[in-house]
C-alpha cells in the first residue's frame, strides 16, 4: 500500500490510492477487532477552527477505535488563533504534541501551509469552500459498497454546488473513475465555480449542468443532495421559491431504479423530507457511519501502520 502524508484534496489522489483506502476501510468494517490496538500510544490532534459535529466526532471515534488518543479544540475562539496566531505557528506547535493532525479551517489553501510547516501528517477536515476530501472519500466508499463499482454509474449532485465544500472533492474523486455520467443540478446562482468546471473539462468525464431533476431522476443510480443555505440568497423570495423545487419527498422518487441510492452529507434541514428516511434507497445514515471506517483507514495510512 502506498503511504501519503497530507490529504487536502482529492485532485492529486490516484484511483489506485482511493481503492487501497476503500479496501482497507472494508476490512476494518468487517473485522474491527483486528484494529483495536493499531494506534496504541499515538495521538491525533483535532484542530477545528470552525464548528463541526459529524466530521469531528467521526475522526475522534476513528482514532479511539484504533486504540489511539485525541487532543485538540473545536472552535477558533477558544484557541490562540483568536489572539492572532498563524496556522503555520499552530501547526509547528502541534508537531510537538501529536503524531497526526486533522484541521478544519475557513481559510482556503491551508494544505500548502501544512505541507510547508508540518512534519507530522495532516488531513483536512474541511477547508473553506475549497475542499472536504474525507467526506468525498466516504461518499465514494458508500457508492462502491452499494454497487460494487463506481465505473459506468449515472450520478447526480443536487443543491448548493458553489459553496458546498464537498462538491469539488467529490467531483475530482468521481473523475478518477471510467465512464461516469454526472448531472449537476442547481439554481443558476449556485452552479459549480469556474475553476471546478475548468478542471472537470480536463477529465474524461461527461457532465451536464441542469436546473431540474425531474427529467433524469428515473435513470439515476445515485442522487447526492446537499443543503441550500438561506444566507446564500440576497433575496429571500428567491430562496423560498427554490427551496421547494430542490426538495426530495417520496413522490419525487416514485419511479427510480430498484438499485437507486440517495445520499446526503448531513446535516439535512428540509431538502429531504423525513418520510424518505424509511425507504430502502435512503442511505445517508449508513453513509455517516462509513465515515468512521474510511477515516480509520486514512489514519492508518498516514501513520504508516500496516
Amino acid at each position: 500500500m502506498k503511504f501519503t502524508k497530507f490529504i487536502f484534496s482529492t485532485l492529486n489522489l490516484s484511483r489506485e490510492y482511493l481503492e487501497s483506502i476503500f479496501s482497507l476501510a472494508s476490512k476494518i468494517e468487517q473485522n474491527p477487532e483486528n484494529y483495536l490496538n493499531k494506534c496504541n500510544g499515538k495521538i491525533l490532534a483535532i484542530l477545528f477552527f470552525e464548528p463541526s459535529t459529524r466530521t469531528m466526532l467521526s475522526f475522534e471515534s476513528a482514532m479511539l477505535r484504533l486504540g489511539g488518543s485525541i487532543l485538540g479544540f473545536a472552535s477558533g475562539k477558544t484557541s490562540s488563533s483568536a489572539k492572532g496566531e498563524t496556522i503555520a505557528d499552530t501547526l509547528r506547535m502541534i508537531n510537538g504534541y501529536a503524531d497526526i493532525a486533522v484541521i478544519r479551517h475557513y481559510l482556503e489553501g491551508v494544505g500548502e501551509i501544512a505541507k510547508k510547516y508540518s512534519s507530522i501528517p495532516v488531513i483536512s477536515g474541511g477547508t473553506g469552500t475549497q475542499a472536504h476530501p474525507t467526506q468525498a472519500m466516504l461518499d465514494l466508499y458508500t457508492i462502491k459498497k452499494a454497487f460494487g463499482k463506481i465505473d459506468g454509474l449515472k450520478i447526480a449532485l443536487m443543491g448548493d454546488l458553489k459553496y458546498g465544500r464537498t462538491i469539488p472533492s467529490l467531483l475530482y474523486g468521481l473523475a478518477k473513475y471510467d465512464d461516469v455520467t454526472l448531472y449537476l443540478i442547481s439554481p443558476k446562482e449556485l452552479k459549480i465555480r469556474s475553476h471546478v468546471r475548468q478542471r472537470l473539462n480536463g477529465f474524461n468525464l461527461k457532465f451536464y449542468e441542469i436546473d431540474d431533476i425531474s427529467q433524469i431522476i428515473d435513470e439515476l443510480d445515485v442522487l447526492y443532495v446537499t443543503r441550500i443555505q438561506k444566507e446564500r440568497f440576497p433575496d429571500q423570495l428567491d430562496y423560498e421559491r427554490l427551496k421547494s423545487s430542490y426538495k426530495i419527498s417520496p413522490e419525487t422518487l416514485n419511479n427510480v431504479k430498484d438499485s437507486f441510492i440517495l445520499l446526503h452529507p448531513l446535516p439535512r434541514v428540509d431538502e429531504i423530507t423525513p418520510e424518505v428516511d424509511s425507504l430502502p434507497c435512503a442511505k445517508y445514515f449508513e453513509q455517516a457511519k462509513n465515515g468512521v471506517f474510511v477515516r480509520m483507514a486514512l489514519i492508518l495510512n498516514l501513520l504508516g501502520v500496516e
Partner: protein
Amino acid sequence: METVEEKKLIVTKIKEGTVIDRIPPGKALKVLHVLGINDNYPYTVALAMRVKSKKMQLKDIVKIKGKMLTSEESQKLSLIAPNAVVNIINDYKVEKKIVLEIPEQVSEIIKCLNPNCVTNNREPVFPSFSVISKEPLILQCKYCDRLLEGQNLSEQL
C-alpha cells in the same frame, strides 16, 4: 486610418536604456504604467503607438533612457505584452535582446482576490499562480484554486 512606418520614425538615439519593441498595438501606455514611468520621470522617453513594423503589422514601441528593468517588471510586462522584445541599449548599441514570454508560473507580483485565501491572511506564504491559459490569460491561485482573469487581472498589471 493612416499609419507611419517604423523607418520614418525619427527619434534621437539613446546612450543607455531600454527599448521595448513589438508591443501589442495600443499597449504602450500600459507598459509605461507597469514600469512606473510618469510625468516626473527625469530622462528621455519616446513612445510610438500603432506604427507599421517590417512585417507590416501594427505595433507599439517604447524607448526609455536610463532605465533597466527589474525581474518583477519583466514578469509583469510578459503578461501584458507577450512576445514584445526588450532591447538593452549600452553605448548606443543593442547589447542584449530578450523576447518576453508568458511564464508558466507567476509569483508575488499579483494578489489573489479571494479574501479567504491563506495568502491574504498573515500566513507566511506569498501569492503564486499557475498560468492555465495564455490566450486569454487565465491564472490559477496555487493555494485556493480560484481563477484570476479578465478585468480582475488587468487591473493588477
